[in-house]
Protein backbone atom coordinates (compact mmCIF):
# COMPACT_ATOMS: atom_id res chain seq x y z
CA UNK A 1 0.00 0.00 0.00
CA UNK A 2 1.34 3.45 -0.82
CA UNK A 3 0.17 6.71 0.64
CA UNK A 4 -1.54 7.92 -2.50
CA UNK A 5 -3.72 4.81 -2.63
CA UNK A 6 -5.18 5.62 0.77
CA UNK A 7 -8.81 6.75 0.86
CA UNK A 8 -9.39 10.17 -0.63
CA UNK A 9 -11.29 11.26 2.48
CA UNK A 10 -8.20 10.53 4.55
CA UNK A 11 -5.81 12.36 2.22
CA UNK A 12 -8.02 15.44 2.17
CA UNK A 13 -8.36 15.33 5.95
CA UNK A 14 -4.58 15.05 6.17
CA UNK A 15 -4.14 18.07 3.94
CA UNK A 16 -6.44 20.14 6.16
CA UNK A 17 -3.95 19.72 9.00
CA UNK A 18 -0.96 20.89 6.96
CA UNK A 19 0.46 24.36 7.44
CA UNK A 20 0.93 26.46 4.32
CA UNK A 21 4.72 26.08 4.38
CA UNK A 22 4.28 22.31 4.50
CA UNK A 23 1.96 22.54 1.52
CA UNK A 24 4.64 24.50 -0.35
CA UNK A 25 7.15 21.77 0.37
CA UNK A 26 4.71 18.95 -0.40
CA UNK A 27 4.22 20.47 -3.86
CA UNK A 28 7.82 19.56 -4.55
CA UNK A 29 7.67 15.92 -3.51
CA UNK A 30 6.02 14.43 -6.62
CA UNK A 31 3.36 15.12 -9.24
CA UNK A 32 0.62 13.28 -7.38
CA UNK A 33 1.18 15.30 -4.23
CA UNK A 34 1.39 18.50 -6.22
CA UNK A 35 -2.09 17.63 -7.53
CA UNK A 36 -3.32 16.73 -4.05
CA UNK A 37 -2.09 20.03 -2.63
CA UNK A 38 -3.86 21.92 -5.42
CA UNK A 39 -7.13 20.04 -5.10
CA UNK A 40 -7.47 20.01 -1.32
CA UNK A 41 -8.86 22.50 1.12
CA UNK A 42 -6.21 24.13 3.30
CA UNK A 43 -8.52 24.09 6.31
CA UNK A 44 -8.96 26.68 8.98
CA UNK A 45 -6.61 29.52 9.92
CA UNK A 46 -7.17 32.11 12.60
CA UNK A 47 -5.87 35.02 10.61
CA UNK A 48 -4.40 36.11 7.33
CA UNK A 49 -3.61 39.42 5.77
CA UNK A 50 -2.73 41.33 2.67
CA UNK A 51 -1.34 44.75 1.95
CA UNK A 52 -1.15 46.63 -1.31
CA UNK A 53 0.62 49.94 -1.40
CA UNK A 54 2.29 51.75 -4.24
CA UNK A 55 3.82 49.07 -6.43
CA UNK A 56 4.18 46.19 -3.98
CA UNK A 57 1.97 43.62 -2.38
CA UNK A 58 2.43 41.48 0.72
CA UNK A 59 0.36 38.52 1.76
CA UNK A 60 0.24 36.41 4.91
CA UNK A 61 -1.56 33.08 4.77
CA UNK A 62 -1.31 31.05 7.93
CA UNK A 63 2.37 30.54 8.70
CA UNK A 64 3.53 31.72 5.28
CA UNK A 65 4.51 35.29 4.45
CA UNK A 66 4.97 36.58 0.93
CA UNK A 67 6.42 40.02 1.43
CA UNK A 68 7.12 43.01 -0.75
CA UNK A 69 6.52 41.42 -4.11
CA UNK A 70 6.74 43.89 -6.99
CA UNK A 71 3.23 44.24 -8.33
CA UNK A 72 4.08 43.75 -11.96
CA UNK A 73 1.44 42.10 -14.09
CA UNK A 74 3.65 39.05 -14.53
CA UNK A 75 4.28 38.70 -10.79
CA UNK A 76 0.62 39.09 -9.93
CA UNK A 77 -0.44 36.48 -12.48
CA UNK A 78 2.30 34.12 -11.35
CA UNK A 79 1.32 34.59 -7.72
CA UNK A 80 -2.35 33.98 -8.42
CA UNK A 81 -1.46 30.85 -10.39
CA UNK A 82 0.71 29.65 -7.52
CA UNK A 83 -2.09 30.37 -5.02
CA UNK A 84 -4.51 28.38 -7.14
CA UNK A 85 -2.08 25.45 -6.96
CA UNK A 86 -1.69 25.77 -3.19
CA UNK A 87 -5.25 24.93 -2.13
CA UNK A 88 -8.75 24.65 -3.52
CA UNK A 89 -10.26 26.55 -0.61
CA UNK A 90 -9.36 28.02 2.76
CA UNK A 91 -11.22 29.23 5.83
CA UNK A 92 -9.90 32.27 7.66
CA UNK A 93 -11.47 33.56 10.84
CA UNK A 94 -10.19 37.08 10.29
CA UNK A 95 -8.42 38.53 7.31
CA UNK A 96 -6.84 41.95 7.59
CA UNK A 97 -6.43 43.96 4.43
CA UNK A 98 -4.53 47.19 4.04
CA UNK A 99 -5.15 49.17 0.93
CA UNK A 100 -3.04 52.24 0.51
CA UNK A 101 -2.58 54.49 -2.46
CA UNK A 102 -1.60 52.22 -5.33
CA UNK A 103 -2.07 51.63 -9.00
CA UNK A 104 -2.39 47.87 -8.71
CA UNK A 105 -5.20 46.30 -10.72
CA UNK A 106 -8.21 46.44 -8.33
CA UNK A 107 -9.27 42.95 -9.37
CA UNK A 108 -6.05 41.49 -7.97
CA UNK A 109 -7.23 41.36 -4.36
CA UNK A 110 -10.64 40.00 -5.39
CA UNK A 111 -8.93 37.25 -7.38
CA UNK A 112 -6.52 36.67 -4.52
CA UNK A 113 -9.34 36.09 -2.03
CA UNK A 114 -11.34 33.90 -4.39
CA UNK A 115 -12.11 30.54 -2.74
CA UNK A 116 -11.58 32.09 0.69
CA UNK A 117 -14.21 31.69 3.36
CA UNK A 118 -13.80 34.66 5.65
CA UNK A 119 -15.26 35.12 9.11
CA UNK A 120 -14.39 38.78 9.54
CA UNK A 121 -13.01 41.01 6.83
CA UNK A 122 -11.02 43.79 8.49
CA UNK A 123 -9.92 46.45 6.05
CA UNK A 124 -7.76 49.51 6.53
CA UNK A 125 -8.26 52.04 3.76
CA UNK A 126 -5.88 54.93 3.54
CA UNK A 127 -6.64 56.20 0.07
CA UNK A 128 -9.95 57.42 -1.28
CA UNK A 129 -9.18 55.78 -4.60
CA UNK A 130 -9.45 52.38 -2.91
CA UNK A 131 -12.79 52.91 -1.25
CA UNK A 132 -14.86 51.54 -4.13
CA UNK A 133 -12.54 48.52 -4.40
CA UNK A 134 -13.09 47.76 -0.73
CA UNK A 135 -16.85 47.92 -1.19
CA UNK A 136 -16.58 45.47 -4.10
CA UNK A 137 -14.39 43.18 -2.03
CA UNK A 138 -16.91 43.17 0.80
CA UNK A 139 -19.68 42.41 -1.67
CA UNK A 140 -17.76 39.25 -2.59
CA UNK A 141 -18.20 38.03 0.99
CA UNK A 142 -21.83 38.71 1.82
CA UNK A 143 -21.90 36.39 4.82
CA UNK A 144 -18.75 37.78 6.44
CA UNK A 145 -18.60 40.33 9.22
CA UNK A 146 -16.89 43.58 8.33
CA UNK A 147 -14.63 45.99 10.16
CA UNK A 148 -13.30 49.03 8.38
CA UNK A 149 -10.74 51.54 9.50
CA UNK A 150 -10.67 54.56 7.22
CA UNK A 151 -7.74 56.93 7.32
CA UNK A 152 -9.59 59.88 5.80
CA UNK A 153 -13.08 61.31 5.77
CA UNK A 154 -14.98 60.07 2.72
CA UNK A 155 -17.80 62.01 1.12
CA UNK A 156 -20.96 61.63 3.18
CA UNK A 157 -23.01 59.90 0.49
CA UNK A 158 -20.21 57.34 0.07
CA UNK A 159 -20.09 56.84 3.81
CA UNK A 160 -23.83 56.28 4.04
CA UNK A 161 -23.59 53.55 1.39
CA UNK A 162 -21.20 51.49 3.50
CA UNK A 163 -22.79 48.13 4.50
CA UNK A 164 -23.42 47.42 8.20
CA UNK A 165 -20.14 46.98 10.03
CA UNK A 166 -19.10 45.43 13.29
CA UNK A 167 -16.97 48.54 13.57
CA UNK A 168 -16.51 51.53 11.35
CA UNK A 169 -13.69 53.82 12.44
CA UNK A 170 -12.86 57.02 10.61
CA UNK A 171 -9.81 58.76 11.87
CA UNK A 172 -7.20 61.16 10.61
CA UNK A 173 -5.65 61.82 13.97
CA UNK A 174 -3.81 58.57 14.58
CA UNK A 175 -0.62 57.31 13.06
CA UNK A 176 -2.07 53.91 12.15
CA UNK A 177 1.32 52.28 12.53
CA UNK A 178 -0.15 49.02 11.18
CA UNK A 179 -0.60 50.75 7.87
CA UNK A 180 3.06 51.19 7.22
CA UNK A 181 4.24 47.61 6.79
CA UNK A 182 5.81 48.17 3.39
CA UNK A 183 6.97 51.73 3.04
CA UNK A 184 7.28 52.95 6.59
CA UNK A 185 5.85 56.23 5.31
CA UNK A 186 3.18 58.31 6.92
CA UNK A 187 -0.28 57.67 5.61
CA UNK A 188 -1.66 59.99 2.95
CA UNK A 189 -5.18 61.13 3.77
CA UNK A 190 -7.91 62.76 1.76
CA UNK A 191 -10.54 65.15 3.00
CA UNK A 192 -14.25 65.38 2.54
CA UNK A 193 -15.66 68.57 1.12
CA UNK A 194 -18.81 68.19 3.16
CA UNK A 195 -19.11 67.75 6.92
CA UNK A 196 -21.22 65.02 8.48
CA UNK A 197 -24.55 66.43 9.56
CA UNK A 198 -26.30 65.30 12.73
CA UNK A 199 -28.83 63.43 10.58
CA UNK A 200 -26.09 61.55 8.73
CA UNK A 201 -24.31 60.86 11.98
CA UNK A 202 -27.36 59.21 13.50
CA UNK A 203 -27.90 57.16 10.33
CA UNK A 204 -24.33 55.88 10.62
CA UNK A 205 -24.81 55.22 14.31
CA UNK A 206 -27.91 53.22 13.53
CA UNK A 207 -26.21 51.20 10.77
CA UNK A 208 -22.96 50.15 12.44
CA UNK A 209 -22.49 48.31 15.73
CA UNK A 210 -19.52 50.47 16.69
CA UNK A 211 -18.89 53.85 15.13
CA UNK A 212 -15.74 55.84 15.78
CA UNK A 213 -15.34 59.27 14.25
CA UNK A 214 -12.08 60.86 15.18
CA UNK A 215 -10.89 63.48 12.74
CA UNK A 216 -9.97 67.12 12.70
Amino acid at each position, binding site marked *: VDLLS*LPSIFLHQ*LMRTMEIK*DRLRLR*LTCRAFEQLVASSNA*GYFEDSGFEVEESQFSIDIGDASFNRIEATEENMETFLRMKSRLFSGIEVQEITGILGDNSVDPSFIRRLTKRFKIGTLYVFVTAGSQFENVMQLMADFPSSKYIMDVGFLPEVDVLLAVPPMEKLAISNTNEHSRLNMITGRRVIRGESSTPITADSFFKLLDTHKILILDYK
Partner: protein
Amino acid sequence: RIYPLMRVTLTTSDGASVTVSRQLTKHSGFIEKAITDMAVDDNAVPLSAVAVDVDDATLKLVIEWLTEHRDDALPYPEKTDEERRADDIPAWDQAFVQKWDTKEDQQQTLYAVITAADKLDIKGLLDMTCKTLANKINGKTVEEMREILQLECDFTEEELAEIRKENAWCEN
Protein backbone atom coordinates in the same frame (compact mmCIF):
# COMPACT_ATOMS: atom_id res chain seq x y z
CA ARG B 1 -29.86 1.35 22.01
CA ILE B 2 -26.78 -0.84 22.43
CA TYR B 3 -26.66 -3.94 24.58
CA PRO B 4 -23.07 -4.10 25.91
CA LEU B 5 -23.15 -7.84 26.40
CA MET B 6 -24.35 -8.53 22.91
CA ARG B 7 -21.54 -9.92 20.80
CA VAL B 8 -20.88 -9.75 17.10
CA THR B 9 -18.76 -12.10 15.04
CA LEU B 10 -16.63 -10.49 12.37
CA THR B 11 -15.13 -12.49 9.53
CA THR B 12 -11.94 -11.04 8.09
CA SER B 13 -10.73 -10.89 4.50
CA ASP B 14 -8.22 -13.67 5.21
CA GLY B 15 -10.83 -16.02 6.64
CA ALA B 16 -10.45 -15.51 10.39
CA SER B 17 -13.33 -14.94 12.77
CA VAL B 18 -13.31 -12.59 15.74
CA THR B 19 -16.14 -12.14 18.18
CA VAL B 20 -16.41 -8.76 19.87
CA SER B 21 -18.83 -6.85 22.04
CA ARG B 22 -21.22 -4.40 20.44
CA GLN B 23 -19.84 -1.94 22.92
CA LEU B 24 -16.85 -1.87 20.59
CA THR B 25 -18.58 -2.21 17.25
CA LYS B 26 -20.94 0.67 17.98
CA HIS B 27 -18.00 2.94 17.05
CA SER B 28 -17.91 1.46 13.56
CA GLY B 29 -20.45 2.99 11.22
CA PHE B 30 -19.95 0.11 8.79
CA ILE B 31 -20.59 -2.68 11.29
CA GLU B 32 -23.54 -0.89 12.89
CA LYS B 33 -25.10 -0.41 9.47
CA ALA B 34 -24.52 -4.07 8.65
CA ILE B 35 -26.29 -5.08 11.85
CA THR B 36 -29.13 -2.67 11.14
CA ASP B 37 -29.44 -4.07 7.61
CA MET B 38 -29.90 -7.54 9.12
CA ALA B 39 -33.16 -6.12 10.47
CA VAL B 40 -32.94 -8.22 13.60
CA ASP B 41 -34.32 -7.35 16.96
CA ASP B 42 -31.63 -6.00 19.28
CA ASN B 43 -32.43 -8.85 21.63
CA ALA B 44 -31.87 -11.46 18.98
CA VAL B 45 -28.60 -13.23 19.71
CA PRO B 46 -26.44 -14.48 18.23
CA LEU B 47 -26.28 -12.19 15.22
CA SER B 48 -25.10 -13.41 11.86
CA ALA B 49 -21.44 -12.83 11.21
CA VAL B 50 -20.47 -9.54 9.62
CA ALA B 51 -17.86 -9.77 6.86
CA VAL B 52 -15.26 -7.01 6.98
CA ASP B 53 -12.75 -6.29 4.24
CA VAL B 54 -9.86 -6.11 6.71
CA ASP B 55 -7.24 -8.75 7.41
CA ASP B 56 -6.96 -10.48 10.75
CA ALA B 57 -3.75 -8.76 11.91
CA THR B 58 -5.09 -5.29 11.16
CA LEU B 59 -8.48 -6.06 12.70
CA LYS B 60 -6.74 -7.08 15.92
CA LEU B 61 -5.09 -3.65 16.05
CA VAL B 62 -8.41 -1.96 15.35
CA ILE B 63 -10.07 -3.96 18.13
CA GLU B 64 -7.24 -3.05 20.50
CA TRP B 65 -7.88 0.62 19.76
CA LEU B 66 -11.65 0.19 20.04
CA THR B 67 -11.27 -1.54 23.40
CA GLU B 68 -9.40 1.47 24.76
CA HIS B 69 -11.97 3.85 23.28
CA ARG B 70 -15.09 1.81 24.03
CA ASP B 71 -16.48 4.54 26.29
CA ASP B 72 -15.82 7.44 23.91
CA ALA B 73 -18.86 9.60 23.27
CA LEU B 74 -20.97 8.94 20.21
CA PRO B 75 -21.62 10.33 17.72
CA TYR B 76 -18.01 11.32 17.13
CA PRO B 77 -17.79 15.10 17.53
CA GLU B 78 -18.09 17.14 14.37
CA LYS B 79 -14.98 18.97 13.30
CA THR B 80 -14.60 22.37 14.87
CA ASP B 81 -12.39 25.35 14.23
CA GLU B 82 -9.59 23.57 16.06
CA GLU B 83 -9.47 20.76 13.54
CA ARG B 84 -6.03 21.87 12.40
CA ARG B 85 -4.59 20.66 15.67
CA ALA B 86 -2.51 17.53 15.41
CA ASP B 87 -0.86 17.80 18.82
CA ASP B 88 -3.82 16.55 20.83
CA ILE B 89 -3.39 12.81 20.35
CA PRO B 90 -4.14 11.04 23.66
CA ALA B 91 -1.13 9.48 25.40
CA TRP B 92 -2.51 5.95 25.05
CA ASP B 93 -2.95 6.43 21.29
CA GLN B 94 0.58 7.79 20.95
CA ALA B 95 1.95 4.73 22.75
CA PHE B 96 -0.26 2.51 20.58
CA VAL B 97 1.28 3.96 17.42
CA GLN B 98 4.79 3.99 18.90
CA LYS B 99 4.57 0.22 19.22
CA TRP B 100 4.42 0.01 15.45
CA ASP B 101 7.62 1.97 15.21
CA THR B 102 9.51 -1.09 16.35
CA LYS B 103 8.20 -3.00 13.36
CA GLU B 104 10.00 -2.95 10.05
CA ASP B 105 6.80 -2.29 8.22
CA GLN B 106 5.50 0.44 10.52
CA GLN B 107 4.41 2.65 7.65
CA GLN B 108 2.53 -0.24 6.07
CA THR B 109 0.88 -0.98 9.41
CA LEU B 110 -0.20 2.64 9.73
CA TYR B 111 -1.58 2.63 6.18
CA ALA B 112 -3.39 -0.65 6.82
CA VAL B 113 -5.02 0.76 9.96
CA ILE B 114 -5.97 3.95 8.09
CA THR B 115 -7.56 1.90 5.33
CA ALA B 116 -9.37 -0.26 7.90
CA ALA B 117 -10.61 2.81 9.80
CA ASP B 118 -12.01 4.14 6.55
CA LYS B 119 -13.64 0.86 5.51
CA LEU B 120 -15.14 0.30 8.95
CA ASP B 121 -16.07 3.98 9.25
CA ILE B 122 -14.39 4.56 12.61
CA LYS B 123 -14.04 8.33 12.67
CA GLY B 124 -11.99 8.57 15.86
CA LEU B 125 -9.38 6.13 14.59
CA LEU B 126 -9.23 7.81 11.19
CA ASP B 127 -8.77 11.16 12.92
CA MET B 128 -5.99 9.86 15.17
CA THR B 129 -4.07 8.19 12.34
CA CYS B 130 -4.42 11.32 10.25
CA LYS B 131 -2.88 13.43 13.02
CA THR B 132 -0.15 10.84 13.50
CA LEU B 133 0.85 11.03 9.85
CA ALA B 134 0.57 14.83 9.86
CA ASN B 135 2.94 15.01 12.83
CA LYS B 136 5.43 12.84 10.97
CA ILE B 137 5.70 15.27 8.06
CA ASN B 138 5.00 18.69 9.59
CA GLY B 139 8.04 20.94 9.31
CA LYS B 140 10.11 18.40 7.40
CA THR B 141 12.21 19.16 4.34
CA VAL B 142 11.09 18.00 0.90
CA GLU B 143 13.62 15.17 0.96
CA GLU B 144 12.51 14.06 4.43
CA MET B 145 8.87 14.15 3.33
CA ARG B 146 9.68 11.95 0.33
CA GLU B 147 11.50 9.51 2.59
CA ILE B 148 8.76 9.37 5.25
CA LEU B 149 5.96 9.08 2.72
CA GLN B 150 7.99 6.79 0.45
CA LEU B 151 7.44 8.98 -2.59
CA GLU B 152 9.50 9.02 -5.76
CA CYS B 153 10.17 12.40 -7.32
CA ASP B 154 8.81 12.27 -10.86
CA PHE B 155 9.28 15.94 -11.73
CA THR B 156 11.75 17.08 -14.35
CA GLU B 157 14.48 19.47 -13.19
CA GLU B 158 12.72 22.26 -15.09
CA GLU B 159 9.43 21.58 -13.31
CA LEU B 160 11.14 21.50 -9.92
CA ALA B 161 12.90 24.77 -10.68
CA GLU B 162 9.59 26.39 -11.61
CA ILE B 163 7.88 25.35 -8.36
CA ARG B 164 10.94 26.33 -6.31
CA LYS B 165 10.87 29.75 -7.97
CA GLU B 166 7.25 30.26 -6.90
CA ASN B 167 7.90 28.93 -3.41
CA ALA B 168 10.87 31.27 -3.04
CA TRP B 169 8.49 34.18 -2.58
CA CYS B 170 7.57 32.72 0.76
CA GLU B 171 9.86 34.02 3.49
CA ASN B 172 11.30 31.51 5.89
